[in-house]
């Protein structure tokens, strides 16, 4: 558990304690509400998690990286961005992977495109985001994030 997760836990527990001291009935409602939210989201979250497991097995990040490093910059950028869009990879896998990409001479542009879409755009999380915010919002947010991820990658290629 990193410091931030821990801090959120501690902060929330303190908040919960204050809430309990102030109003028992309301605090009970809070916990019921939290449980309701959990139940509501559990099937979607589990399907996202198992879908990520599937994607990582079918398209191992290391193999994608190996493939990308043999392509032209343009193709590598597109493949990198698309792969980043499909999946969600934890930071401790993503950063070393991108570091090897950069060192292997793939270039900054595809690597950044991959990194940014990886976290900001989500095909696997689309169904859940759609449930929470509606199709239009989800499509616009993910679409714009994708375009701007490419833009960030291009600008970084010029600067570095």
């Amino acid at each position, binding site marked *: 558990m*990193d410091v931030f997760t821990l801090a959120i836990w501690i902060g929330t527990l303190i908040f919960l304690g204050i809430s309990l001291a102030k109003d028992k009935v309301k605090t009970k409602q*809070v916990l019921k509400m*939290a449980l309701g939210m959990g139940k509501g989201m559990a099937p979607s979250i589990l399907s996202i998690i198992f879908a990520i*497991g599937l994607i990582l097995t079918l398209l191992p990040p290391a193999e994608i990286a190996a493939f990308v490093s043999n392509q032209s910059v343009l193709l590598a950028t597109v493949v990198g961005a698309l792969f980043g869009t499909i999946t969600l990879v934890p930071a401790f896998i993503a950063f070393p992977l991108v570091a090897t990409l950069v060192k292997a001479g793939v270039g900054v542009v595809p690597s950044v495109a991959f990194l940014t879409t990886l976290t900001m755009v989500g095909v696997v999380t689309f169904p859940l985001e759609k449930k929470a915010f509606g199709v*239009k919002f989800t499509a616009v*947010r993910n679409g714009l994030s994708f*375009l701007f991820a490419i833009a*960030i990658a291009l600008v970084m290629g010029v600067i570095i």
Partner: protein
Amino acid sequence: MTIIKKIRENLFLVIVALIYIIMFIAKPAMGIEALKSSGYYIKEMLMIMPVIFILTALLDMWVPKEKIMRYLGKEANAKGVVLSFVVGSISAGPVYAAFPMCVMLHKKGASIRNIVIILSSWAVIKIPMLLNEAKFLGPKFMAIRWVLTVIAIIIFSWITAKIIKDEELPGEVMAQAGLHINRDACMGCTLCARNYPEVFEMENKKALVKSYDALDPDRLENAIKSCPVKAISYNNSMNM
């Protein structure tokens, strides 16, 4: 009938389960591999989701609507933008952890623009992630990407707010307590407003829940049942 409905509601889950079944038949080793790599994400989820749900419910209960509106609403301007970046950056967990929190904030008056900023910064510019990035790719790489990302988020959150209107966000699925109408499903038949005019009314050819003090369970049930597209839902877990 209900089975088909259940499958349709959880279509994604059904598809994922099917692929796993096919995989286990065709390539059992690969199936086990996939389950194993899911394990990490399950741990990640269990570490953060319970606390996010509790925190969201706590904020929902104790922070008044006016406060959220003042700090994250349309009129909050630069202050709201900065605050949204701070909220997103000090967060933890995967981006979907931000969904219930953002739905709650929007319901309480946060603007679409600030919701997009929180979601996006939650996804890309978390502080633990930045430290990791600096370690592997160098502080210069990290700093430049951070600045560009912040600029990009400011621009596209503004664009998103121009395209999407507040009413277009449903946000009813996150198990909110009370009476809800799925306005995407409602086809404006006016049945509910005629059956129970004290609670339902029509607005722009769609049904709307009026503010109500007490509910008559029989009449409510009647209205819910009569809706041809089953767009009315009632969650009474809060009303004790």
